[in-house]
Structure formats: structure tokens, C-alpha cells
């Protein structure tokens, strides 16, 4: 019965207790549902000495979704988020994204906090210990080279694949954190730092979140804009259970025949979830071929899929772009 390395598990019942436990055990990790972390531990990717169970913190189990704003606690399970009537009514993109994650059993276990902080993924990383060792460990673990981009000089391109982040990015999401120095709020856009610039000036697939040692995610929030229509789409190899080949969240507003607001965000493409820059320039007129060509250009420019999955990077970028176009057309038609 020694499949796992030795670790101690703490089961605090309040956020204050978590903060204290994090202070006392600087190398501890939080475990929500464990559907990401325990897999990594089993594969010998990580071996934290202490796990802090944050999956049952009552304080962080609330969902508040009104026409104006949405706030979701880190310990909320994905099943609950997906089935929440107010989320379905006001934030369909978030309910649909939650429903698309893994399989039903995982959604009963997985938490929102774990999904927001999901580790980035790569075919050279999400493998058993013997596989990684045989194939010369890469730099996201103990090696010195990136096998996806051998010339990368220390930069990792592992892909962010959590499905909830794009939806929250559409609503200018914010994240509430608590740590040894108290509470702070960070824009979700700034929370994910995996720009993977070659000069190393930003985060990458290895350092993908602006979370400080000892901090934990309390809640994720978003602000609505009246009249926005939203939806989520995702392509995966097996439709019933799988990380995204690419995932796409779209919000738009139609006034008469005018596209008056357009927001697009992706997961499964870059080492960070991407809220597409420059979509405002596509608004103010009708939806035409030119709009789609311009959208295509934005995607080409900002989606940086590399060969971190079994499907080639250029294919994932095309899939992502195509999903965005289809969603834009569908929502625009629905807004008529």
C-alpha cells in the first residue's frame, strides 16, 4: 500500500486555519478534489510533504450569480456550478464550461479553486515517472531542456487547459486571494502570467500564476454587462471525458444589426488562458466576412499552440479559431 510518497494531510475547517497551516508548512500544497494534484503525485511529478485539504471549507462553498455579477467560492464543486440555476440563467458560458470538464465523477470531486489553479499540461510532462526518465526529463520537472521547443532556452510552453478561466475572463474576472500578508484581489488577466516570452521577462508553462508562497484562492468573480449573450464550446478527442484540444468562450451583444460588443477567450492553446486583445475594433457595424477575417487575424496573432498535445499546434489553433467563428455567428443569430 505504498503507491504514494509519504505525506501528511491536514483537514482545516476554516480559511484562517488554512492560512496558519500554510505558514507553518511552507512547502505544503492545497488539495481541493485532488483530480489534478493526486494524479501528478502518483506520477512522481510532485511530492509535497504536506497536503492541506481545502475541498470542504464551508466558507468557500457559495455561489452567487445575479444579472450584475457572479462570485464563486474556491471549494464549490464543478457539478454544483454546472447545475446552478442562476449561473445557467445569467452566465451560460460558465455553466457550459463547468459541464464540459472531465467526466461526471470528476465533476463531483473537482473544485473551482483547483480548476482555476490547474497545472499546465504537456505530453512530455503528464507521463509516468519511468516514461519521463527514459525520455530525459524536461525542464518543467528536473531536466534542463524543453522537448517541445529545444531551442527555447529555459522557457516552458506547457498548455493551460482549465475550462473555467476563459468564461471568467470575458466578465473581467477577479480573483480574491489570502496569504500570510492578508487579502488581496488580482485581475484574472494579471493572475495568469504564461506569456512564455523568449527573453524570460514573463511567466511560462512552468510559472504560470501570479500566486505568492502561502497564498490560496478564496473566490473568483466577474461583472456582467446587460444584454451580453454568452456560450462555451470545446473540442476534445473523446467527447465524454478529456482535457480540451481547445476551448472557446464568447460573449457578444447585438443591437439591431450592429455587433456592439465582442469578447473572445480561449483555453488549451497557450501557457495561459487567452482573452483576445483587439476585438473592440470588430464592433460597431454588422457581422460580415470582414469581421471573421479580422477575428482570424487576431487568433493567428495571439494563439501560440505548440506541440504539447498529441494534436499538432497549428491544428489546435485552427480548431480554436473555427469554434470562435461558429460561436460568434450562433450568438449573433440568437440575438436577432
Amino acid at each position: 500500500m505504498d503507491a504514494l510518497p509519504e505525506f501528511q494531510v491536514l483537514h482545516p475547517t476554516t480559511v484562517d486555519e488554512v492560512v496558519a497551516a500554510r505558514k507553518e508548512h511552507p512547502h505544503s500544497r492545497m488539495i481541493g478534489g485532488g483530480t489534478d494534484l493526486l494524479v501528478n503525485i502518483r506520477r512522481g511529478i510532485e511530492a509535497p510533504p504536506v497536503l492541506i485539504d481545502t475541498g470542504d471549507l464551508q466558507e468557500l462553498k457559495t455561489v452567487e450569480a445575479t444579472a450584475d455579477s457572479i462570485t464563486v467560492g474556491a471549494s464549490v464543486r464543478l457539478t454544483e456550478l454546472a447545475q446552478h440555476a442562476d449561473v445557467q440563467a445569467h452566465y451560460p458560458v460558465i455553466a457550459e464550461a463547468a459541464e464540459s470538464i472531465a467526466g461526471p465523477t470528476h465533476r463531483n470531486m473537482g473544485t473551482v479553486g483547483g480548476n482555476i489553479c490547474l497545472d499546465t499540461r504537456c505530453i512530455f510532462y503528464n507521463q509516468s515517472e519511468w516514461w519521463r526518465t527514459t525520455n530525459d526529463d524536461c525542464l518543467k520537472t528536473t531536466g534542463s531542456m524543453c522537448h517541445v521547443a529545444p531551442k527555447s532556452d529555459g522557457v516552458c510552453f506547457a498548455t493551460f487547459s482549465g475550462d473555467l478561466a476563459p468564461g471568467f475572463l470575458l466578465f473581467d474576472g477577479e480573483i480574491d486571494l489570502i496569504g500570510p500578508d492578508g487579502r488581496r484581489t488580482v485581475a484574472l488577466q494579471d493572475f495568469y502570467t504564461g506569456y512564455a516570452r523568449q527573453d524570460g521577462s514573463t511567466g511560462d508553462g512552468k510559472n504560470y500564476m501570479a500566486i505568492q508562497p502561502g497564498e490560496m484562492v478564496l473566490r473568483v468573480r466577474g461583472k456582467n454587462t446587460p444584454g451580453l449573450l454568452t456560450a462555451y464550446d470545446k473540442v476534445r478527442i473523446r467527447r465524454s471525458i478529456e482535457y480540451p484540444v481547445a476551448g472557446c468562450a464568447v460573449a457578444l451583444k447585438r443591437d439591431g444589426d450592429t455587433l456592439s460588443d465582442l469578447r473572445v477567450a480561449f483555453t488549451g492553446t497557450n501557457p495561459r488562458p487567452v482573452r483576445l486583445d483587439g476585438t473592440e475594433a470588430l464592433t460597431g457595424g454588422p457581422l460580415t466576412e470582414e469581421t471573421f477575417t479580422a477575428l482570424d487575424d487576431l487568433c493567428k496573432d495571439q494563439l501560440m499552440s505548440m506541440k504539447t498535445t498529441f494534436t499538432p499546434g497549428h491544428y489546435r489553433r485552427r480548431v480554436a479559431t473555427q469554434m470562435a467563428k461558429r460561436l460568434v455567428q450562433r450568438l449573433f443569430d440568437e440575438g436577432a
Partner: protein
Amino acid sequence: MAKKLVSFTLNGRAHDGAAADNTLLLDYLREGLGLTGTKTACDGGECGACTVLVNGEPRLSCLTLVGQVAGKDVETIESQAKGGKLSPVQEGFHLKLGAQCGGCTPGYIMAAEGLLRGNQSPTVGEIRSAMGANICRCTGYVKIIDAVQHAAAVMRGEEPADYPDVPAAQG
């Protein structure tokens, strides 16, 4: 590693035991208690063979630490047959040939049990979604859906019928 006491309800009875913090529920059930009906297969949360019910909800025992079920209600495949009689779900899998090699079957039965407790008239789509985290390499899934429909009919107190061909999945 030092063991700690852990108490939960197991198959309807209060259970007190001892386990190290790094013990998975799956290993605890199989190796600690000899309840080998729950299966180990992929070891990474991808196949559903280890599915058990925790507070009535299907969960993966291979990604659950024993300490995470303290005070909760755990049900395994061993809770299904009672008094020498198969449960409705087991009967469905037996009569409708929902099992071939049988490796995935305990997981399927527990996932189906979780579904049917809350919904005794599931559509084929609902059955498909509820079984979405389970993988079967023998049956081709159609027989499994038949089996769950059979069990649902038995639970509703109806005479189980022959079900028309299950439509192919869309998309």
C-alpha cells in the same frame, strides 16, 4: 508511516479503521479491508473502474484519500447484492449482457446506481452522460445502456421490456 484513526460509514455500517495519511481510498478498500470488488485499472482517474459512491455521489476512489471520506457515507460494489439476490442494476448488467470481461463493471454499476437514485426515468442521453467517466473496452456500450434501462424499469416497479436499438451518439 504512522497510521491515524479514520471513521466513516461503509456499506451501511459504521467503520472505524486506521490508515496512513497517504492511503488512497481504493487501496484501503482493496488491500486493507479485502473489498476487492472495486477495481484498479488506469491509476490516473481516466477509466472509472474504481468508482464508489460517497454520500450517494459517484467518485473515483483512486483519487480520493481515505481522510477525505471521514464522517461520510461510502458505498462499494459489495453493498449491491443483498440476501443472495442481485440488485436491480446488477440484474440489468447480468440479463442484458452489460459485462464481458467484467473489469469495468463494478465501476459502471456504481455510476449507474448513483444516477438511478436521483432519476429513475433517465433518457439515453442522461445515461450516456452519467456513464461518461467510465471506459469499457469490450461491450461497445450499447449493452451497458440496455442494462441501465433494465435496472431503471425494475426500480420503477415495471416489467422490464426489450429496448429498441440505442441511437448512435451525435457529433
